[in-house]
């Protein structure tokens, strides 16, 4: 049977690959991602499930699923030209992806099917740092955390729980790692960016509150606090917390092995490895 072996929460800031290329392997961002990568490699996963919020590069305003699963042999990215990121071709496991989608739909989650797609920096940047040789198959699960109305925090957590059950029913002996990616407080290109910059962190207090909840495994309280209004008050990509909440459904009551909060960037790095 397949088993979940590890889970990670990381940011996907599009210019981080360029910063790390410029500042080298001892730079803060490089070291934070290295910690996640070391844990990820120690977990020896066979397949990765990544919860991601697309930035209108996989989907668009004319066709915008709230939940979707990529069911394909292979997909490419990034399709939004982040600096210092090569084009990647990534394998997937369409039979497992279709199984996850079926279990999701049977459990009441109307998960859209996507078979011919590219992904943007939000999938590629975490993989670029955590599995740069791209030797592992990856199944992307898309959650609309950007374009209101957003799905509720509870619903995203529950979707994660259903997919966890679906993986545990899969008959092949696969080791599965889960990634949830995004920021907690971040405004991108919107009115609350910093002067002269393309982003800003409007609400560091919320980052602290979210990280306290994650560190103490108080996920129910975090779900109650994470209303759409509260997440978007923290920035126009504040709904990326939903990717973390879906990932946290795989973690249970475990405390993180590491949780590095980057208040000034509005996000955190966390990892749980238990097998």
């Amino acid at each position, binding site marked *: 049977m397949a088993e979940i072996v590890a889970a990670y929460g990381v940011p996907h800031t599009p210019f981080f690959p360029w910063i790390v290329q410029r500042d080298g392997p001892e730079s803060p961002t490089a070291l934070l991602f290295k910690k996640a990568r070391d844990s990820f490699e120690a977990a020896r996963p066979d397949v990765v499930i990544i919860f991601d919020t697309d*930035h*209108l*590069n996989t989907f*668009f*305003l*004319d066709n915008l699923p709230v939940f979707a699963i990529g069911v394909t042999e292979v997909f490419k990215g990034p*399709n*939004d*030209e982040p600096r210092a990121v090569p084009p990647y071709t990534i394998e997937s496991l369409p039979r497992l992806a279709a199984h996850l989608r079926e279990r999701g739909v049977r459990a009441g989650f109307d998960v859209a099917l996507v078979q011919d797609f590219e992904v943007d920096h939000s999938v590629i940047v975490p993989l670029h740092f955590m599995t740069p040789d791209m030797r592992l198959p990856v199944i992307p699960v898309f959650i609309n955390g*950007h*374009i209101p109305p957003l799905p509720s925090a509870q619903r995203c957590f529950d979707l994660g729980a259903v997919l966890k059950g679906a993986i545990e029913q899969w008959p092949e002996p696969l080791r599965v790692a889960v990634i949830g990616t995004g920021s907690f407080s971040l405004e*991108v*290109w*919107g*009115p*609350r*960016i*910093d*002067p*002269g*910059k*393309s982003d800003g962190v409007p609400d560091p207090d919320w980052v602290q509150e979210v990280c306290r909840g994650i560190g103490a495994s108080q996920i129910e309280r975090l779900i109650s606090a994470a209303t759409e209004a509260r997440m978007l008050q923290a920035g*126009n990509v504040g709904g990326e917390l939903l990717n973390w909440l879906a990932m946290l459904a795989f973690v249970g009551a475990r405390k993180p092995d590491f949780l590095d909060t980057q208040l000034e960037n509005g996000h955190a790095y966390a990892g749980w490895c238990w097998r």
Partner: protein
Amino acid sequence: MSVLALNRLCREVLRDRAFRERMKSDPAAAVAQLDLTAEERQALLAGDVAKLYRMGVNVFLMGYLCRFEVCGLTLPVYSERIRSAGH
């Protein structure tokens, strides 16, 4: 309202290199065939991102206008204008 057309245009600046170049060299001609209102066309060509924002254009997509420096936008100009849109 042709907000979807404006949003599509912004993404074409990312995806279509030839269109991107036309938007740099002669933006009025590049968007001449698009079905936009006079107000939308004017706001776009003026790089008035605060007004486009109020019209409902998505900011991730407007970011491409700034990133590729079309319609007179640079990062300092974009930042100042979008910040003036308030929240």
